[in-house]
C-alpha cells in the first residue's frame, strides 16, 4: 500500500516538474511562438530586419484602396495606437473587411510601408445570425456615438 502511494506521489511530482519546465521553455520562446507582431511592436523596432515577418491588427476603417486592375490593394493595419500602411497584390480572403482582423506576411519596404506577400483574414469568436449582428452593431453605434476614438478598447480584446 505504501509503495503505491509513493509511486503516485512520484508521478505527481514528476508531472509538476515537467509542467514548470514546459512553462519556462514556452516563456523563453514567447516571441517565436507568436504568429504575428502588432504595429506598435514594429514602431518600437521589434520587427526583424531584412527578413519576412507577419503583422496583425485591424484593417482601418476607410483605408482600403483598390487599383483599377482589381488585385493591387492598399490598406492600413492598426492596433488603434499605431498604424502601418500595407500594399499587396493578390486575392483577398472572403472575410477580409474594414474594421476586421487581418494578418499579413511580408517585409518592410524602403519607404516605411509594409509589402505583403500573403494576407489572411482573422475572424472573431462570435457566431450569430445577421439580424442579431445588426442589432448589436446598432446598439454599439448608439452607445459610442459621443465617445472619442481613443477610448475604443484595444484590438486584442475585440477579436
Amino acid at each position: 500500500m505504501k509503495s503505491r502511494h509513493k509511486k503516485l506521489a512520484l508521478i505527481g511530482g514528476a508531472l509538476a516538474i515537467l509542467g514548470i519546465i514546459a512553462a519556462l521553455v514556452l516563456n523563453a520562446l514567447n516571441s517565436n511562438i507568436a504568429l504575428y507582431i502588432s504595429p506598435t511592436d514594429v514602431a518600437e523596432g521589434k520587427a526583424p530586419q531584412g527578413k519576412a515577418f507577419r503583422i496583425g491588427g485591424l484593417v482601418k476603417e476607410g483605408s482600403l484602396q483598390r487599383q483599377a486592375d482589381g488585385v493591387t490593394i492598399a490598406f492600413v493595419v492598426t492596433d488603434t495606437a499605431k498604424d502601418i500602411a500595407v500594399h499587396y497584390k493578390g486575392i483577398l480572403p472572403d472575410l477580409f473587411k474594414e474594421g476586421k482582423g487581418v494578418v499579413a506576411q511580408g517585409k518592410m519596404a524602403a519607404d516605411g510601408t509594409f509589402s505583403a506577400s500573403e494576407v489572411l483574414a482573422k475572424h472573431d469568436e462570435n457566431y450569430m445570425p445577421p439580424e442579431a449582428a445588426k442589432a448589436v452593431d446598432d446598439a454599439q453605434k448608439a452607445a459610442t456615438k459621443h465617445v472619442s476614438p481613443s477610448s475604443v478598447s484595444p484590438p486584442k480584446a475585440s477579436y
Partner: protein
Amino acid sequence: MKDRFNLYRFASPATFYPLAGKLIPWFVALSVVFGLAGLYLGMLVAPTDFQQGEGYRIIFIHVPASWMSMFIYLVMAGWAAIGLAFNTRLSGMMAQALAPTGALMAFLSLWTGALWGKPMWGAWWVWDARLTSELILLFLYIGYMALTAAIDDQRRADKAGGLLLLVGVVNVPIIYFSVKWWNTLHQGSSVNLTKSSMAETMLWGMLLMALCFWMYSIAVALMRVRTIMLERERHTDWVRAELGANSSGAAK
C-alpha cells in the same frame, strides 16, 4: 465499503468484459439519438452566421472533435497514472483501446480545420500555436500506438506507453490556452463554462454533437477493450469459458 468492493470487482477483466458488452448498445443508441438531434439543429434549425455564412456549419464537427481529442488524451493519461502507480491490468488495456479514437478525433479536428481555414482565413494551414500544438497531439497519439506496438512484453509496453502519455499531458493545456497566451490566427474560444459568444441554437447544436461524439467514443472504446481483453487474457480460464460458450452457442 460496499462501493469500494464493487469498484475493485469491475477492475477485473473477467467481470468488466460482460458489463462492457451490455453497455455498448446503450452508448451506440445514445450516440445515434444525440447525433440526429445535433445534425438537425445544426444543419436545419441554426441560423446562418453574420460573417461566415453557411461555411461556419463545419463547427458542428470541428469543435466536438477537437474537444474529444483533448479529453480522450487526458483520460488515457489518467489510466496511465493509475497503471503505473497501482499496476492494474485494466488500465493499460483502456489506454490502448482509447488511442485510435483519440487519434481519429485529432485528425478530424485538423482536417476539418484546414477545410474551414481555406475559405475563411485564406490558408489551409499556418504554423500558429493552436494548430501546431494540435498537430503535436496527433503525433503523440500515433507515437503512443507505435511505441506500445513495438515492445513485445505487454507489461513493459504499457509502462513505456504510460510514461509517454504522462509526459505528453503538458501539451493539452497548451492547446487549450494557446489562443489566449499567444498571437494566433485561430480565434479565441467561443464557449467555456461561464460564457458563450454563439447564438443559442448554434450552441445547442454544437453541444448535442459533442454528446454524440462522447457516446460514440465510449462505445467504440468499449468494443475495442473487449477485443484487447480476449487477446491479452487468452490463456485464462474466463476467456476459454467465454469463447467456449460462444462457439457452442453458435454450433447449436
